[in-house]
């Protein structure tokens, strides 16, 4: 069965039933058919009431579709709930849907203080009928919204009491609301200019081992670029063309914790990372993402390996959407050391979030291996990407 069931029978019914039984005995003594009819009629009404409450919703089925829909903020969407009733008719019940506040039903004012949105819908369903309820909403905030609970209040058809059905299993429909980007200053200025291994259209560096072909010599070309064999073959000087390469590959590491709690700037940080993700998508820069939120698996935190393109962007946005204040965090230093020991090394390290002394030491260590450090700061509704310079600790000689 799909439901947890609670029956709330009217408390006065047992009392009246007692009187009815006494009335039956009285009717036998005073030989009154009317009194007997009254008592028996009421008793059967009570029995019917009891049976109805016991059976109501027994064969009411809810179709639990597994569906993941993705939205940007202010997008409109809908969940559809399908019910099928093979049991007793349900007259003027009430369906209550509880869902996360990341989405809100249309027309409803958005208030951040609410933890859960609740909607009640009149619900009547005759035997052998199906009902599809479409629940329209608009995405309000970053997050993954799920329907947390369904409750159906079925009042007794005969009139005394009601049965409450509560969904037993998770409802699998979810709406992912992607984070909104906020402008991040200094992003373009920090574009990579170092030598690396990634092929790019424009760069001052070239891969001397991977050459593409030759072209005619122009006087500004250096002699060591002349392809002698090709020149002989072509009977004219030829210059080698190399692949332009640049060092690429970022790692964005987000520290969500602030002491023992989640940082207050979480939304701004995530929005800044979103902006960086879009930027990287347009410039075709591969990047990976680490967030110190505890997960199950071989990597104990959220980690997306290096990638680029549309699919990677989608994964990143979904990961960012899944972060919430209720997550339990992992020590940032632990994540950094895990990264430096087990994960693919990237030459640009972008740090976001709180930085402690220990973090500084770890970051310094990373920079010793050649990574260039950046950090995202939050300044009045926009992010600021700047180079992070950490001076090694000075130890006095004693």
């Amino acid at each position: 069965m799909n439901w947890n069931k609670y029956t709330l029978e009217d408390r006065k019914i047992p009392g009246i039933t007692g009187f009815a039984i006494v009335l039956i005995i009285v009717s036998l003594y005073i030989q009154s058919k009317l009194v007997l009819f009254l008592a028996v009629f009421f008793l059967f009404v009570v029995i019917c009431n009891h049976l109805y409450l016991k059976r109501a919703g027994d064969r009411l089925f809810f179709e639990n579709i597994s569906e993941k829909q993705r939205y940007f903020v202010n997008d409109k969407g809908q969940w559809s709930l399908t019910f099928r009733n093979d049991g007793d008719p349900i007259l003027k019940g009430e369906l209550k849907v509880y869902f996360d506040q990341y989405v809100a039903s249309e027309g409803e004012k958005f208030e951040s203080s609410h933890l859960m949105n609740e909607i009640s819908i009149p619900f009547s369903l005759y035997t052998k009928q199906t009902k599809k309820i479409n629940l329209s909403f608009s995405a309000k905030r970053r997050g993954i919204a799920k329907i947390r609970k369904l409750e159906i209040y079925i009042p007794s058809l005969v009139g005394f009491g009601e049965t409450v059905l509560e969904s037993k299993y998770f409802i699998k429909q979810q709406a992912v609301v992607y984070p909104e980007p906020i402008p991040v200053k200094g992003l373009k200025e920090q574009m990579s200019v170092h030598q690396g291994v990634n092929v790019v259209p424009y760069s001052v560096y070239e891969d001397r081992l991977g050459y593409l072909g030759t072209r005619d010599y122009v006087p500004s070309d250096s002699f060591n670029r002349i392809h002698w064999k090709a020149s002989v073959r072509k009977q004219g000087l030829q210059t080698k063309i190399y692949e332009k390469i640049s060092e690429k590959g970022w790692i964005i590491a987000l520290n969500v914790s602030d002491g023992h709690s989640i940082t207050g700037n979480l939304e701004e940080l995530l929005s800044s990372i979103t902006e960086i993700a879009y930027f990287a998508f347009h410039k075709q820069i591969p990047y990976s993402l680490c967030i110190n939120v505890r997960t199950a698996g071989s990597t104990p935190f959220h980690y997306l390996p290096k990638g680029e393109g549309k699919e990677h962007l989608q994964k990143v946005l979904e990961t960012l959407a899944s972060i919430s204040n209720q997550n339990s965090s992992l020590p940032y230093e632990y994540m950094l050391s895990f990264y430096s020991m087990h994960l693919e090394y990237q030459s640009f390290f972008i740090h976001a979030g709180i930085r402690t002394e220990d973090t500084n030491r770890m970051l310094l260590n990373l920079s010793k291996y050649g990574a260039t450090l950046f950090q995202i700061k939050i300044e009045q509704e926009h992010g600021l990407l700047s180079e992070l310079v950490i001076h090694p600790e000075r130890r006095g000689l004693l």
Partner: protein
Amino acid sequence: MNRVAAVIYHFTLEIILGFLSLFLFYINKKQLPPILLLGALCSGSIILISLLLVKFRNKGKGLYFITVFPLLLVIWQQSDLPLFMGIGLGLIIFWRGISLFDDVSDHSESLLLLLSFFIGLIAIIYSAMSGYPYQSEMIYLLIAQLVIVLIGGYFRKWNLIKKDKSKFALYFFNIMAVITAIGAMITILLKYIQFIFFAILQFIVFLFTSVAEPLFSILQYLFSLVGNDGRKANLIRGRGLLDVADKYQVPSYEKTESILYILLILGAVIFIFYLFYKKKLKPQTLTIDSSSVITVSEGMFRAGQSTLSRWRIKPPEDIIRREIFELEKYAQKLKLGRLPFETLEEWWKRVGLLGSNDSIAIYEKVRYGDGTSLYEEQILIKREIRQLKQQLKNIRKSILEKKKIHNSKLSKRLSLKNFI
């Protein structure tokens, strides 16, 4: 119009309960109480007063005393009944009309049904004992009460749906028809049931006597063996005083009777105390409940004390402030009150009231600024406060329901634990 119908429906149930209690006084006189006159007067007046309240709101109350009340008294004069009863009836109708009109959903039909059955049971037994000729009228009233409760409850739900109306109606009337048929069938079999019932009773008595007889004979035998001397001595002593002993036996029974009565009363008193005690105990055992946690935190802010002193202050002069004051008072009753450090907006947010920003702005203007309120603003506030009260009631109801479910879950879990 729905509201008027609901008021009339509920008042009809109350009238029937009233009639049944009226029968108690008339059984001795072997007369039929003036049901028709009372019924006509009551139903006519309740329809008029609810219509007046719908049309004229608060002015309707005054209009009732000008128009309907004198009319009722004039008709009452035609009958031979005393005038003060007529005045009482008019006032009762006025009270019930207003109270039902304010909130119909608050009143439970099953309580009325319970009371009707209780009074009906007493009246039926009493009338059967005194051979009252109008007993069947009473029973018809009881049946009518039951049928009105059933159909009224169903109709209220049925009226609100749009699809499949006929199907649902058919289903309900099928159930009712089956129940009526079963009831009628059993009623026809009254004589056989009576026969079976008394046969069972006789059988039980027979069983008891057949078990008791040998026991008593054994006892007799045992007494004859052991207790011979004592009994003999008794007999000797009693022989001369036989007549006197017979006379003394009556007071001795009285003594046991009075002891029994005292025990019975003591038992009843203990039972009542137990009930009170249980009621007191209940909130203590259920402190796991989240809503009671909230009251604990209220205690920390010393909200209870300060709010108490706040209610002792006179309500403010300004109409808008008075309305808000009344709302706070009402919320306090429902345990959703405003804490002393909260602004109006914060309070509404915490409790979950959806009030408009305009009304907050008006209140703040009146409360903290120099501004005086306009007439339109007063009307707006009044309308809004009425809605807010309704919302408060709904919130309270949902909290109570949650509590109820929580309790039932808890008790289920407890019983499971005990079972294991």
